[in-house]
């Protein structure tokens, strides 16, 4: 439990700090931190149970959906929230380990980790697009119901 509190706290601070590096509007820093924290918690919980790839996918979808909702609520571009949420999920550690193995002439381990890093980047990509498609669907359904009822 202490581990989770520690992870939640650090991911919140890290994501909010990234907002400062990217010069996000001051009033949006805490929101960015919140999105980053939710994404990271979903990731670490699922990574225990399953694999890193589905965990990343689920976390990215969550980040995407929350970012879209925040964007509409606070009338700001989605990118302000999604960037903060995505950063912790980017497989920087794996890419680093792959690079280190390459340098130490351990090519089989290096290729294995590079392939895994690629898979995780793909999971982030798919997650982002899925959340966007979901958002468009949700937005379109009420509109079509409205036009149908107005025709009657």
């Amino acid at each position: 439990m202490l581990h989770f509190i520690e992870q939640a706290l650090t991911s919140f601070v890290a994501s909010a700090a990234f907002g400062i590096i990217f010069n996000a509007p001051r009033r949006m820093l805490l929101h960015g931190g919140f999105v980053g924290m939710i994404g990271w918690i979903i990731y670490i919980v699922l990574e225990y149970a399953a694999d890193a790839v589905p965990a990343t996918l689920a976390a990215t979808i969550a980040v995407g959906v929350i970012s879209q909702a925040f964007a509409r609520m606070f009338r700001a571009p989605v990118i302000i929230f999604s960037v903060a949420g995505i950063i912790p999920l980017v497989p920087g550690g794996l890419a680093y380990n792959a690079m280190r193995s390459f340098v130490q002439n351990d090519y089989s381990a290096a290729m294995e980790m590079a392939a895994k890093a690629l898979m995780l980047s793909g999971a982030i990509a798919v997650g982002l697009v899925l959340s966007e498609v979901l958002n468009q669907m949700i937005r379109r359904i009420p509109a079509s119901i409205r036009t149908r009822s107005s025709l009657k």
Partner: protein
Amino acid sequence: MIGSNPTEQSRVIAICLLAGKIMLQSGGETYRVEDTMKRMAAALGLPHSHSYVVPTGIFFSVDATEPAKLIRISERTTDLDKVSEVNSVSRRIGQGELSAQEAHDLLVQIEGKSSSYSTAVQLAAAALSSGCFTIMFGGGWSDFLPALICGGIGYAAVIAFHRLVRVKFFAELTASFVIGILAFLLIYMGVGHERDKIIIGSVMPLVPGLLITNAVRDLMAGHLVSGLSKGAEAFLTAFAIGTGIAVVFSLFT
């Protein structure tokens, strides 16, 4: 109607180009820049505009008889505040709250705006996030302080070298080299335990996370040229970071 008057028309074009330029230079996604420019043009009386945006330039045309306008973008940074401000100007034009002149004045003001955080605050943020990332990636609290130091100095190095040489690749390579050296040095001095965790946390502020995300979203939105060129930029940055660290490893192990 504004679009029928040639001088009014060129003023609207100038406003749209300025808005697009600010957004693209500040890290906005290309499809969003295109969308914003078209919406602004339509709201200001030019409904049939075409906007083609790639990370290095903007092409904008308002009708078949007029020549298209072009803007070259050479410097790109990340400034989400400007993206957000231009977004709100575009929304207010769409709602009819702003005239062309007011929008132009606001955009000029946004373009000249400097970062809302001082360099010291940004360095502190980079240092703090490095420390936190080290914990997130499985490091112990004994590695927090060394990561804080490495991350802060590494980010300062990338800013300093970029001002000095103006080549992004070289600045990133040198900064990650500095981070690697510092991590080895701190471990040698007995500060911190896991060298790998410290390095991974410290390079996170340099990692092109925003670029990767943008590249993929551009690709999926069908903007293949933008997606590929942003992907190439992201790959170059990742390669620079990796090389810097790799040099340190080949020197010390």
